[in-house]
């Protein structure tokens, strides 16, 4: 069952990666606004006439 050390090691590294990402995201202000992003993604301003048609 030594393999469990490998799996725990890898799983923990991934967990640490996500933890670090989370801390970075929180510090970076990614979660400061929990409303606007959900609305902003709805708006794709289309620049119709400049489309390059193929």
């Amino acid at each position, binding site marked *: *069952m*030594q*393999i*469990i*050390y*490998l*799996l725990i*090691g*890898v*799983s923990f*590294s*991934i*967990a*640490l*990666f*996500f933890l*670090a*990402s*989370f801390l*970075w*995201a929180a510090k*970076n*202000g*990614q*979660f400061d*606004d*929990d*409303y*606007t*992003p*959900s*609305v*902003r*993604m*709805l708006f*794709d*301003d*289309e*620049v*119709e006439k*400049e*489309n*390059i*048609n*193929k």
Partner: protein
Amino acid sequence: MELEKFNYDNKIVRNFAYATLIWGVIGMLVGLTAASWLAYPDFFNEYLNFKILAFGRIRPLHTNAVIFAFVGNGIFTGVYYSLQRLLKTRMASDLLSKVNFWGWQLIILGAVITLPMGFTSSKEYAELEWPFDIAIALIWVAFGANMIWTIIIRRVQHMYVAIWFYIATFVTVAMLHIFNSMALPISLMKSYSAYSGVQDALVQWWYGHNAVAFFLTTPYLGLMYYFVPKAANRPVYSYRLSIIHFWALIFLYIWAGPHHLLYTSLPEWAQSLGTVFSVMLIAPSWGGMLNGLLTLRGAWDRVRDDAVLKFMVVAITAYGMSTFEGPLLSLKNVNIISHFTDWTVAHVHVGGLGWNGMMTFGMMYWLFPKMWKTELFSKKLANVHFWIATVGILFWTLPLYWAGFMQGLMWQEFNPDGTLTHEFIDTVTFLSPYYQMRVLGGTLYLTGAIIGTYNLFKTTTIGTFVADEAAEAAPLNKNSRFANEGWHGALERKPVKFIILSFVAVAIGGAIEIIPVSIVDSNIPTIASVKPYTPLELEGRDIYIREGCNNCHSQQIRPVRFETVRYGEYSKAGESVFNHPHLWGSKRTGPDLAREGGKRGDYWHYEHMQNPKGLSKGSLMPAYPWMRTDDLDISMTEKKISAMRTLGVPYEEGYEAQALADLQAQAEKITKEIVSKMEADFTKEELEAKFEELKTKEIIALTAYLQRLGQDIKVEK
């Protein structure tokens, strides 16, 4: 601030969308063929008895095609479309996008060719042989690099929750794939897993479960968080909940794998760990499911008219059902009924057909009109597709739930005198009508997919494709670079890059440290009487792997009375220490084979492979007539012995020199035994000719392997 003008790359999205639809139809067609095999085995055995069509070969082709070709291309379609828009940035590298697309299609093509040819590692959902494993890793990294590069040069500071799901998908799948694929190549298309027995099983299901988690779930949740609000034209119910959903889900999912190994010889604490995390998973799963459904609050009237929303609602509902069922199946008292039966198969198809399939088609019906600047060709056809698919899912899953539940209970049933009520074969013949209903369900679902593909294709003909969609956005205000900063200073200001590099460093370090230890230590057999396979048995085992016998036969007897009475002593971890890879299996379409050795004579196996139904009335098993006619390939026997020794199987140094002689001696012994049973029908000369003809054939090696199973710790009576 000046607005920057740029274009979104729609061409790559279109290509992936086409690939999704084409591979989807092909993958489902292969699935339907596999399902038909089980429903109409006589027809297949009579008219379609080809090597490349045997159930054990096309079942992995089906799973690989629908997971990696259909859903995989679906992921890329959705990610390449949404990522660019969410970040207001074109994909960083068109070249990497193209490498991703063509590389992925070539790998799939390789799978379509090599899996039916019998080139398989036998590890579920990772059957492709090692050259493909390397290719998958490279192409996957090309995808991830392109995505992360795009994130770094983005024009929107905030990363919408969908992007988090995409990042988690990339990082975790890369890790899982690499560690699960560790193998020692013998030749271009043959390798042995670096892990053995219980360790291999644990790695396999750590991967297998997370393939579900991080390939079929997290990317599609990202797509849900993008396409459902888009299609409904209203923001997600709670953005805050989506963030909690994401972090909770990814921290819990990775530990749930051992629930695939309940009651096996995996140590009990590891099984319990898997159960606990699986039960906890219901919270984030349902949080996400409700978040998706509630996004439609106040817009339910639109669901009535809009086919896109209909597909998505059914998809999210299916997600809710299968993530409710998952924790249930992880409980030992439920698992003892469900495991090895068709219940599990029904469970994954609620997820596959419902969640992935319906979400994919919903997304496509929304995407095609957008990219071709037109209306959908026919809303009516889309509705027809929706209803056929939904009814198809019901016809598919309900009979199999019932079949699995009943079979699980039948296996457990005892007579008052303590004998088993049902022979295994009785539980197989019982399933026949349910298998036929599944074929109907699958046919309906596939018909829907074909109608959908036709509808989408027609949409492309009435619209004008916008290959490069113009867009404009203000650039991100980046910090100015300090004049004299070193490379690390620059790295520190790029957190994404920094985190990834340190993660890679940690992982490589850990791997180098741990892999050798795990390989060396696992060689010590915990049971002294367990010996390595003889060369002939080893070759027979490779035939077993090639034919995919493990798709229908488990080699793992659970420590409960109804199993030990039927099959014999329960399986011990020490018994499979030399098994690279393990062949425990996950499904019993046929009976368990862990103690098959010695139960029947050699001649029985010889006849059974030719005509399974003749010896076991009602059997679904394909016949393998080519095993009697094809010569055993012994060109790599010595290499195989050496490879096994490298992996830690204790063959004596220099045994290679003697291996072929031993192989021939054992083959002659078995052939003599088989031929002796034919004495009544043939003359002495004919028998001698038979002996000479048979002794080099594949059937002899397979028989040797089957007769060895479970013999190591057999108690002589």
